[in-house]
């Protein structure tokens, strides 16, 4: 891999190295017996990475009791212990790209709240799949947001894949229906459906996703084969609610963590993995079409701990 998540994250750290991060970093550089304050600092470091309060407290409590029982004796052991905890959470979900076959056409839905990167990710995925030798079709099922269709069309042109769209305000499920029909007629392997951003609290908009799902399933047995929640790495604890609600109505079975090229750590995926066992499949590390990387739990955790300490 030319660029790793770690490189990207290190850049972010370099630009915004604060006193705070330095102080937290001390936790991992310490030697000698574990002082209670180290664990407090570790707890703050995890919270500062957006893992959520609940998870951070639980993980650190676990460490605390290991220290108490003598299983952890020196500060040097803290870092590997945390690493193992976090890695365990992520690996349990079977993180990484979804390789399950489906179709043809294999249908992937991209869903999420507003502005997280669904359309861009659809384009990035289309390019990857195309390069892997698949024929791909994009479905412009965001019929609501101004110029959303234009945006996807520009991407489709750049990548050289067809895009199916209708007029503004059209029924997204009808667009998906059309896209599947077109894919069948042209013998296309994969259909990637870009949906409108919506807040999970808007029940009527969530219903719309249910309908899209239903239509896909009716047209192609087993579809949608993959439903990706596109999650912005800067998201705080609300990401857990997003995963829960989109999980319940849209049947999300994987996460794309975008904008990891900034300074956000994206720790909310740890809470999501913990609570919902949802795997992270891809990470977005830029606005360009090649800025998508398969998620690697090891790299992610190292990057998180590296920048936290």
């Amino acid at each position: 891999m030319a660029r790793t998540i770690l490189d990207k994250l290190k850049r972010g750290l370099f630009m915004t190295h604060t006193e705070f991060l330095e102080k937290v970093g001390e936790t991992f550089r310490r030697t000698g017996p574990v002082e209670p304050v180290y664990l407090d600092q570790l707890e703050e470091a995890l919270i500062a990475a957006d893992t959520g309060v609940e998870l951070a407290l639980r993980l650190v409590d676990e460490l605390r009791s290991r220290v108490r029982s003598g299983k952890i004796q020196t500060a040097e052991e803290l870092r590997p212990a945390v690493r193992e905890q976090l890695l365990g959470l992520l690996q349990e979900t079977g993180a990484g790209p979804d390789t399950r076959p489906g179709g043809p056409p294999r249908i992937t839905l991209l869903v999420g709240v507003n502005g997280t990167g669904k359309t861009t990710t659809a384009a990035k995925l289309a390019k990857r799949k195309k390069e892997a030798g698949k024929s791909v079709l994009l479905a412009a099922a965001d019929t609501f947001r101004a110029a959303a269709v234009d945006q996807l069309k520009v991407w489709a042109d750049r990548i050289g894949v067809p895009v199916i769209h209708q007029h503004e305000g059209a029924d997204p499920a009808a667009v998906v229906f059309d896209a599947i029909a077109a894919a069948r007629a042209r013998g296309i392997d994969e259909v990637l459906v870009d949906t409108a951003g919506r807040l999970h609290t808007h029940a009527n908009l969530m219903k719309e996703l249910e309908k899209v799902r239903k239509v896909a399933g009716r047209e192609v047995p087993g579809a949608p084969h993959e439903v990706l929640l596109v999650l912005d790495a800067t998201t705080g604890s609300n990401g857990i609610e997003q995963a829960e609600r989109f999980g319940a109505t849209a049947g999300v079975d994987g996460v794309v963590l975008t904008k990891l090229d900034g300074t956000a750590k994206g720790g909310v995926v740890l809470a999501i993995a913990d609570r919902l066992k949802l795997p992270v499949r891809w990470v977005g590390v830029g606005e360009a079409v090649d800025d998508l990387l398969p998620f690697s739990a090891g790299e992610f955790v190292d990057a998180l701990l590296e920048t936290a300490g």
Partner: protein
Amino acid sequence: MLEGLQDRLGRVMKTLRGEGHLTEYHLDTALREIRLALLEADVNVEVVRDFTERVRERALGKEVLTSVTPAQMVAKIVHEELVRLLGGETTELSFKGRPAVVMLVGLQGSGKTTTAAKMARWIRDRKGLFPLLVPADTSRPAAREQLLVLGKQANIPTVDTRDMDDPEAIARRGLREASIKGYQVLIFDTAGRLHVDDELMGQLLRLKEILKPQHILFVADAMTGQDAVRSARAFHEKLDVSGVILTKLDGDARGGAALSVREVVGRPIVFAGVGERIDALEQFHPDRMAGRILGMGDVLTLVEKAQEVVDEKKARRLEAKLKKNKFDLEDLRDQLRSVRKMGPLQQVMEMIPGMSGAMPGGGVAEGQERQLRRMEAIICSMTPKERRHPQILNGSRKKRIARGSGTSVEEVNRLLRQFGQMRKLMKRLGKADPRSLKRQLGIRQSGR
């Protein structure tokens, strides 16, 4: 939604209640809980640390230690500090200059383009000024088309810059057009960018030099977590941001980012984005936001919205009734009816005291619309007298109403219970000294 902070503070205050005076030990317990509550609401760890420190200092002052009601005093301090941190007073933007230039900046996808159009509409309709929209995002696919479409929807003149590829040239052209045609406000939409992107941050600085904006507004997503501090600080250090706009507040994010951003930027939050529609923009009210974070209904915003949708006289009557606690079932029905006109239901429900929690599934459950219509049907099946004096509703009246509305006695009872809760809450709000948190937190006088 938002209950975390309220529940926690409520619990803390309950444990403190009944203490004759506050010891440092009690204060530590309270502060620990306050800290966790704020962290759970996504307030940045650094900001939380400063916040609890300030609360501690003030609480340790003799005003609290010698007070006979220390719990209330702590609550009051927390609330005051929260409002203060959010900026104290509502800031009303003014627009001076020919044209007055507003530059919108922020991370990718935060809501700049949408907000540009919303603001233009707001400036025209509320300020009576002529705004010009200038799309200058030359990097994201179809970003300028997006603003052109929005401008058209809102009927706001928008410069078609699609044939240009240099934001600086666009800035100069925008200024020229505005001054030739006499537009009073120029709203400049920039491409989203990361605060760590030196090149693009430098570009913003050059645009600032050309545009000499009266306002540089940092557009931030209310769902942002801990990173809010880092991005806001970087944008502010580079550009000397003059204000903040918080978007996507129509969701259930606790909005701790509001506190974080406000604290590092030190400039007012001027607008709140509360939906995708072009009219979903509100002025930001720090005291209401504090109330919202603490989980109270937002009576004032509701009344304000009602004024826009319903006719003004009715709304004023409602406000008066809310204040005097004369709100009856007839008013509730009116409200239910206008609710559908007001936009996203859940958002409106949250503004009605007692309703956010009263709705099934915590206020965001499926089928809310239907539920509302059933509630309306129940009220419609009552006689005017019953609506005004629900206490006369006995068993047989309830049965009749249930039959008439195609619901059940159980549902009628539920509606009455909810109505009762609303009234109780309104009564408390109506009487509450706005500076005091104690009623809002449901703390009763401990008989002393």
